């Protein structure tokens, strides 16, 4: 309980500090103006979402290998958390795009692959609702999760491999790219804050799945009586 409270307080502190820094510390971006400040929320959420999907992939691989329920619990928990972060990305992206591009959405490689990633993980969650038997549900969804993860590197590299309407990478984007030093510091601080939030949500969601595992065990016991 104490650990959860500490994690919650640290996360709250980091998230509030990151929001404050993105409004009051970073300088105004010359071309876009204040709307650029959405970037610190949008891009940091995207990074945290992709990390969650990587954790899901890791859980899925380990479940296929070891067949231990804890890896299935990690997989489903990380998939839901990743989906929450990706939903934020898909909401904040168009809100930023409309004043900057003049359109809410375009089917370029980055936006399309992100939307496909979101659909794949929604399908992952739906698939689990269709299978009642816990072991079969865990194995099939682990295979589907491994397949779904194939889209994640595509999302990351899409702006590096193809010309897109979405801005080219400003972090780790090679020569000619980059952020103003204060913007860079605040961006990485926002990434840290969003990752702390991701860990908090993941640990809470994992506890829920553990309870579900307990329910499954008790049901089996009741059926055997």
């Amino acid at each position, binding site marked *: 309980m104490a650990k959860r409270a500490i994690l919650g307080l640290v996360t709250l502190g980091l998230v509030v500090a990151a929001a404050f820094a993105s409004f009051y510390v970073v300088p105004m971006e010359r071309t876009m103006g204040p*709307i650029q400040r959405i970037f610190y929320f949008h891009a940091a959420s995207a990074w945290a979402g992709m990390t969650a999907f990587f954790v899901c992939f890791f859980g899925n691989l380990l479940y296929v290998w070891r067949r231990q329920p804890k890896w299935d619990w990690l997989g489903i928990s990380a998939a839901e958390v990743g989906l929450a972060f990706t939903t934020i990305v898909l909401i904040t992206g168009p809100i930023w795009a409309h004043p900057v591009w003049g359109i809410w959405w375009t089917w370029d490689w980055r936006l399309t692959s992100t939307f496909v990633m979101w659909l794949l993980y929604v399908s992952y969650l739906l698939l689990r609702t269709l299978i009642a038997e816990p072991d079969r549900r865990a194995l099939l969804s682990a295979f589907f999760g491994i397949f779904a993860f194939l889209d994640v590197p595509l999302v990351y590299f899409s702006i590096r491999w193809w010309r897109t309407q979405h801005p080219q990478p400003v972090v780790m984007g090679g020569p000619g790219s980059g952020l103003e030093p204060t913007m860079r510091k605040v961006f990485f601080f926002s990434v840290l804050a969003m990752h702390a939030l991701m860990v908090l949500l993941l640990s809470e969601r994992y506890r829920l799945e553990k309870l579900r595992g307990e329910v499954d065990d*008790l049901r089996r016991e009741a059926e055997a009586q």
Partner: protein
Amino acid sequence: MKNFDSIFAAYVLGWAVFFGFYLSIGKRASSLRTEIEQLKNSLSRGK
């Protein structure tokens, strides 16, 4: 501030997703705890 409405909407909607998700975890956990109690009671009655 220029585009204040857009910035406000992005932050409000974004945080609404996080809070909604966090609340849904709490709600589901509470219903599972109730189910665990019921199952434990019915198992102890059956013994």
